[in-house]
């Protein structure tokens, strides 16, 4: 043995690279103990006299008490919004409206860390997502629609666009601030006033947003926030003096709203559930497709209406793709939403967790193979490990029903025609993904898929300029872009 050989003898022992906790500080958020309703530019006590706690899903800790509006409160809010509409907001110079929106957008950017922390605290989503997705996109929506506020005549030439009046908006708990931005920005740009009801489990960023409105000096009554549960939502939808109803949430409630609005002349847009197909062809860039699949279903714990919850894989690459997917799932970090390294946070509510468990149990019973990577879930709070089902048949409930959790169902196909057939064979039609290197195939798939959004070689990518919305039981109407502005206008 030479000296050189001896020197090569050393064999370092590999050891684990455990990331130390890196929590974002909560200090930046100052929570009140109790919140009232935001009506006419003030926080007011609810006439219903009812308050309920809102909790952090990661710890079950009570964060604050929030007012639950009753019919009387909703009536008051709509009345104030009507007054604000009639007395100024509808006919101030459009350039002035734009200024308010720009101001709101800038304040959101300035206070984005505060909002991101609160969003993760109240909703359970990882800080990485609220910081890098929810907040920048919310600000971007205000910036985008601010730009249209004084150009409506150019957006819809020769059609004399006019505002509608009072918009009633009801938003879900999965992207509380972002959905608020999607709703409020186009409504204000078009010259309407707003009464918005946040979801009962995630009201806090909407209440903090009221602070932004005051900071921006928005005239009182132009935006009113009424917190509460389904009773407040129903009162708002059914209120006679509302001109427009915009709802994002479950298909079930969407149908009820459509019934309630029928025959009233109120304009309606619904953005409901989905069961999107994410289709991977055998020529796809595999490692990136894996990222897209993971981002498609595990983004925001799968609490995404456009989540890629059905994975359609071409049979020729089924095995390597599943092996890669399982391996990748093993690197997902589930835990404290405020930790900057967390990939999957807490399930938003106990109720939602029960629903996910119920459907997963159904999947196992129906005969699908279940896989979950090893991961330690925190003891307190509501958690669900990332899950994938293989050997899923089109007829299983987990292939048909929206789970709205971190659960993926994998199906296979042999030809592009079969992929289209399976993808479209659902009651929903919100979104779809196509993974292939072939440009012509992307275009032909996009034409054949009955989905409002088709992503090519990416997934869950949003932009304020791009319209978003669904077909069939996923609802109707579009948000984002010019398409998102039109539902808030009437044309003379």
């Amino acid at each position, binding site marked *: 043995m030479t000296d050189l050989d001896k020197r090569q003898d050393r064999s*370092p022992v*590999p050891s684990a*690279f455990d990331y*130390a906790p890196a929590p974002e500080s909560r200090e930046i958020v100052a929570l009140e103990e109790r919140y009232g309703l935001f009506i006419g530019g003030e926080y007011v006590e609810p006439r219903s006299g009812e308050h309920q706690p809102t909790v952090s899903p990661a710890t079950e800790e009570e964060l604050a008490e929030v007012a639950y509006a009753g019919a009387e409160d909703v009536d008051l809010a709509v009345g104030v919004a009507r007054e604000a509409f009639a007395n100024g907001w509808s006919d101030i110079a459009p350039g002035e409206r734009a200024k308010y929106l720009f101001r709101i957008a800038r304040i959101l950017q300035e206070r984005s860390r505060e909002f991101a922390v609160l969003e993760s605290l109240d909703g359970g989503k990882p800080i990485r997502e609220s910081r890098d997705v929810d907040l920048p996109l919310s600000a971007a929506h205000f910036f985008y629609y601010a730009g249209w506020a004084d150009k409506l005549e150019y957006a819809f030439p020769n059609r004399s666009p006019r505002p509608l009046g009072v918009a009633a908006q009801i938003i879900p708990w999965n992207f509380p601030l972002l959905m608020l931005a999607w709703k409020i920005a186009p409504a204000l740009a078009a010259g309407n006033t707003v009464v918005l009801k946040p979801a009962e489990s995630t009201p806090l960023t909407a209440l903090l947003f009221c602070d932004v409105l005051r900071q921006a000096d928005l005239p009182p009554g132009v935006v009113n926030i009424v917190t509460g549960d389904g009773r407040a939502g129903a009162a708002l939808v059914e209120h006679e003096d509302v001109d427009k109803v915009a709802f994002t949430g479950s298909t079930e409630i969407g149908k009820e709203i459509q019934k309630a609005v029928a025959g009233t002349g109120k304009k309606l847009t619904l953005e409901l559930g989905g069961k999107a197909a994410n289709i991977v062809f055998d020529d796809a*860039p595999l490692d990136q497709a894996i990222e897209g699949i993971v981002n498609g279903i595990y983004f925001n714990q799968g609490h995404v209406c456009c989540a890629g919850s059905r994975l359609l894989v071409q049979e020729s690459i089924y095995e390597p793709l599943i092996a890669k997917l399982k391996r990748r799932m093993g*690197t997902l970090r589930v835990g404290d939403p405020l930790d900057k390294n967390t990939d999957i946070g807490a399930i938003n509510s106990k109720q939602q967790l029960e629903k996910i468990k119920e459907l997963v149990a159904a999947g196992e019973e129906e005969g699908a193979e279940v896989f979950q990577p090893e991961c330690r879930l925190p003891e307190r709070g509501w958690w669900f490990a990332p899950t994938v089902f293989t050997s899923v048949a089109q007829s299983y409930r987990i292939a048909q029903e929206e789970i709205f959790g971190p659960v993926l169902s994998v199906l296979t196909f042999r030809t592009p025609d079969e992929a289209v057939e399976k993808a479209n064979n659902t009651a929903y039609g919100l979104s779809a993904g196509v993974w292939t290197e072939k440009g012509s195939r992307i275009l032909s798939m996009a034409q054949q898929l009955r989905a409002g959004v088709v992503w090519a070689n990416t997934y869950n990518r949003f932009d304020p300029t791009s319209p978003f919305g669904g077909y069939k039981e996923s609802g109707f109407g579009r948000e984002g872009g010019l398409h998102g502005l039109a539902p808030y206008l009437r044309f003379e």
Partner: protein
Amino acid sequence: MAQAPALPRGFELPLEPRLPRIGSVDQVALEERSATLAKRSIKREAKLFALELAVRMTDLTTLEGADTPGKVAALASKAVRPDPADPTIPSAAAVCVYPNLVPTALEKVKGSTVKVASVATAFPSGQSPLDLKVEEARRAAEMGADEIDMVIDRGAFLSGNYARVYEEVRQIKEAVGSVHLKVILETGELGTYDNVRRASLLAIAGGADFIKTSTGKIQPAATLPVTLVMLEAVRDVYEETGRKIGVKPAGGIRQAKQAVQHLVAVNETLGPEWLTPDLFRFGASSLLNDVLLQIRKEKTGRYQSPDYFTLD
């Protein structure tokens, strides 16, 4: 290892019976993934672990026309003991020099764990006749280099002559025998991530023990997305064949933070098994001092002036 088959220009035939399909890389998604990895927040013990590992993985490099025995001796001493003020700091992995300076480097690292790597094969361009390149690699190995860093012929690669690239790697591996062979792809000249993946698989099929991004003479050199493509290629080869190939980003990594980001990418792509100098290296010179500075900061809580770290 498969015999060298006559390859058609498309390079879609598997070179080894079980070499993974070539596949493709999506630029947007790849860069997004690497940006996500770069955002991992590595603190306290985890940071110290990564920094010390980075020292053990560093190939301290000098590849200048002006290199002298004095310069190389200084560099080799630094590799053996990077921080004279802190004996707990481990040695670097290797020193990387031109063939003529291998004996000087060997002399200085004797008795330590530091290896001597030599570039060869008409570094940095690779534009010389194959027999000369083979001879150069053989001679460098004979002079005692533990590791040979060869370059691929990018001219051949970019003109679609993949068979020639493969054949060169194969012949040079044969010439250097058991000496560790690192194959430099010079990713800055390859133009696309698809090409980086293709060249990685080609070099591995030819017999590379390590694949290395760059010569350091071309910008851009090592970037996180490029390293990620190479890690993914290595992972595919490992899963198909069980062969463990090393990866060495070289050039452009100057800050400890970048090194930590690369280690996160290794950890989450190939797993902790690859977190060893046997399978991952940094080709760098100025990186080491920044890593030492950061280690001192982690240990003492204070940043020190760069004057407290030796320049070699």
